[in-house]
């Protein structure tokens, strides 16, 4: 299962500290892991929500650090792509996977797959026994759709104001965090539904 999907910055942001990341979109799947563990059972719903938000920030920060180290090591220069060139941006994107140890921040060990498209990162946090080949493909697909539907190569503020489109996309391609084995026909069918949703 996928625990969460994030879209966050991987470039320096003025208002934040050096290694921090601004989370633009986050969706956590499933029940809060706090209610089912012994540690956090006494937290109020409000506290649980804060805890969850903080966990998401921790993931974003870790991925931000992984992305910048990876980019530094590969020495590739970031090239700004123009809106309309989503396919190229995706091709140029760097990807990787970071191991999140048990407790840091989720109760169990997780694998955070990431795709860095210029100044934004798209992260999928999965349980490590999950089929990572499938997860990689799904992440790629989700990123492509996000870039296209939300015109993210431009100003990029649409992701904040049209998050319902990402929700709808996720409910088709990653329902409740379930990775799906979709051949091109099934995928086409779902994508048509998403396109119909966006057109409204």
């Amino acid at each position, binding site marked *: 299962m996928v625990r969460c999907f994030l879209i966050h910055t991987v470039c320096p942001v003025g208002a934040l500290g050096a290694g921090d990341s601004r989370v633009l979109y986050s969706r956590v799947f499933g029940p809060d892991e706090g209610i089912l563990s012994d540690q956090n059972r006494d937290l109020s719903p409000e506290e649980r929500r804060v805890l969850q938000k903080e966990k998401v920030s921790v993931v974003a920060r870790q991925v931000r650090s992984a992305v910048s180290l990876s980019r530094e090591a590969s020495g590739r220069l970031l090239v700004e792509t123009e809106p309309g060139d989503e396919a190229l941006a995706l091709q140029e994107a760097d990807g990787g996977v970071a191991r999140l140890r048990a407790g840091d921040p989720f109760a169990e060990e997780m694998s955070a797959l990431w795709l860095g498209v210029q100044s934004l990162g798209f992260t999928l946090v999965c349980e490590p026994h999950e089929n990572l080949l499938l997860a990689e493909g799904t992440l790629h697909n989700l990123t492509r759709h996000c870039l296209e539907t939300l015109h993210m190569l431009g100003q990029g503020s649409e992701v904040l104001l049209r998050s319902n489109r990402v929700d709808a996309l996720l409910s088709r391609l990653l329902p*409740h965090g379930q990775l799906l084995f979709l051949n091109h026909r099934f995928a086409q069918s779902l994508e048509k539904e998403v396109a119909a949703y966006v057109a409204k």
Partner: protein
Amino acid sequence: MYSHGSESLIKQAREIQESELQKFHSRLVKLLQGKELGHEAVDSLQRLHLILSATKYTRTLPPELQKRLQSLLSSPAEQFQVLSSAVLRETLPLSGQEVNYNQENFIQLNSHAAALLLSQAGSRADVSSLCAHLLCSLDSRQSEGQANSLAHTLPILNTVLTHSPECLTEDHVTLLSKKLVDWLRYASITQGGGAPSGGFFTGPRSRQPVPIAELDGTVSGDFFTVLCVGQGFTEDQWMNVYSFSMLRHWLLTYHSVANGNNTADTANKLQLSLSLSHSHSFCNDDRSEVDGSVVSMVSATSSSSRLLPPKERLREKAFQYCQRLIEQSDRKAHKRTDTDLQKACLVEAVCILDCVCGEDASLVFRTFPCIKALFGRLSSDLSFARVLLPIAQFYLNHGEMAAVDCESVWTLVFGRFPAELFNSPFLAHEFLRFLRLNLESLQLRVPQYSHSFPNLLKFLAWDSPAVVDDFVDLLPSLVTAGTAVELLHTLLDLPCLSATLVLQVRSTCLPISEPGGRGLLSLDAFRSQSFRGLFLFLLRGEAGSGDTIDRLSTLHELLAETADWPRVVQCAQTVPVLLHIFFDTVIAVADEKLLAHLVQVMLERSSLLLNIPKYNKEIHRVFSCHLLRLCKLHPSLVVDQSHELLEFAGATAKVYSKEEIYTHVVWVLGEYLSASCDSRCSVRLITSCFETLEAVLFEITSSAPPPGADCPVPRVVTSLMSALAKLASRSHDLIPRVSLFLSKLRTVTRGGPVAWCSDEEDLVAIVTRGEELWSLLKAPGVAQSVLTPPPLVTTPQWHRDTNVAMPLRLRALTNLTHSQ
């Protein structure tokens, strides 16, 4: 991509004033009360979502708004379902209005409402109730109009299974297993009439049942799977996809549900599997290529499995499904995404087969031929490396039982993967995870594991930040007495390996001579014949061919320009951590001879490291720490290695360039070169050590430091003085010499500043120490007990020693005094 616009939007959302927010709320309530909800409502809801989600602190909504949103969850327009679910997820339910998970009717839930319920569940009981209701809806017959509404049920059940398997009962397991069997094995094999979410007009005339097709276009001759295509899909075909997507997880966890005891007894299982194996008298990896009238070998015996209980039946069907997928993955798909899917399906199929074989050992014999054939098919193509890993896992788990030779598998996995695919981040992650999870098994069954560290470390050398965590876990298993020295050398030269891998990659990418470009010296060296051997040694795949090379300094010179390459620098930063782990582990497995060898290596390598800024210093610090530790544990090491240590300590240049480790060498000499630590320590040895150190001390305190060097660190001077004093206390003839030196030192420093010490405070500290030692040495007996205390004093037993234990003494005294 990320602009000021976005930043300011977020800021506005966070800093919105309470009054403004209230106005917004009331406006929104009014909007939502209208009959037709249009774009304005959507935009406003979206803004509300932004306001709520922009801050981690929870904002509450006015009750009226909340109620209105709650009712929007069942709106016919999906946009409002999505938005209301998203908004409500970001806020808390009204107190007193929390959903009662037990009583609610959840049958008509849409996906978004279900997501909200799941996220708001406050306890395990809530999750259980939700689960039970969903399963009821699965069981009841669904009407035509709600075509895709079941689709989200399986993912939710899977989530519940992940977090809290005890929420399901044994009955649930049986029910779901039956359903899964139906969907996986008996889905329609004709194409659907159109999009599942309703209303496609197809007149009865055009309705001819068209069979489903394979990915390469041929007509499918067997049951439906995720690798089958059609113009449209029926609902059960969709459920086939959802079922397969959760199958592995289901098979892994369904026995940890509540009341989960495995009811099938062994005898029963054995009998059933025997009866099945009689009908499987064919070879499973035989693939028919004939179109149309194919009877797939895989599904020929489905009738006999009807005798099995639901869980076992599901296992059998899962087995058949996976075999079919493996067969289908050999077909040439037309689209790239389908080829990727085939790979993912192969991984999943092998994992599921591994799982079912783990539960039912009789399946191993039916499965192995297929897995072996798959391995044979894929092993020469490294683009299938990520598929070969689960295959290796299968071999590891079941190879012994099936008495299969796994040699070729391990040669591929430990030989070719790290050597050729070190720069693939996903493979590295999965490979290292495979190692971590199977460490015990691998150490037992794969003899070449502990010798494969030169290859394994390539993953680390290439991408240290991503995998250093894994190596922290794995390194202890790679430390063996036989390879410890070579491992130490390899770890110290990890940055060199890093540079070499970069050169290797560049060498294959770049043309032989860069047009007009500045040729890299290191690249030329890498490609030249005369230095080939050096690089080949670094790139070796197995340990055992030698601890290190003679021309190490040449190698370092050749790679000098790589010292600022980011990959090399990142790698260098991980080496100290790994060295600490190495030394911690090696102490447990090493005998004294090995430890002596390691001390030698440390001394030797302290001046033989790739010259990366800060790297040398860090390594010296690690060496110093562990030299101290080793000598403390085995004091006789010092006498044993006295020759090497003295050689090191006698080189005055080291005072200026390696003061950290020099200080520690001097300290261990002073502390442990004594007869009480090792009876081989003779007076002559003490005297020769004394003379060596004395010479160095004279030299550094009599003249200015050599040009280009700083003054010696005060700690070096005081360490030398203390060491001399300690040695003198063991051989009293030496005391006059030390005392003479110390009093001379005092005289000289009284005369004003000295060339070898720039700071006055430091000088005072040095002189003070000198005076302390001088006065101590005036009473040789005292000096001896202070500077060379017997072990009894340094490691007191106190209450542990029955002879000196206080209670015992008191008791004895009491008995004596009360003897009357």
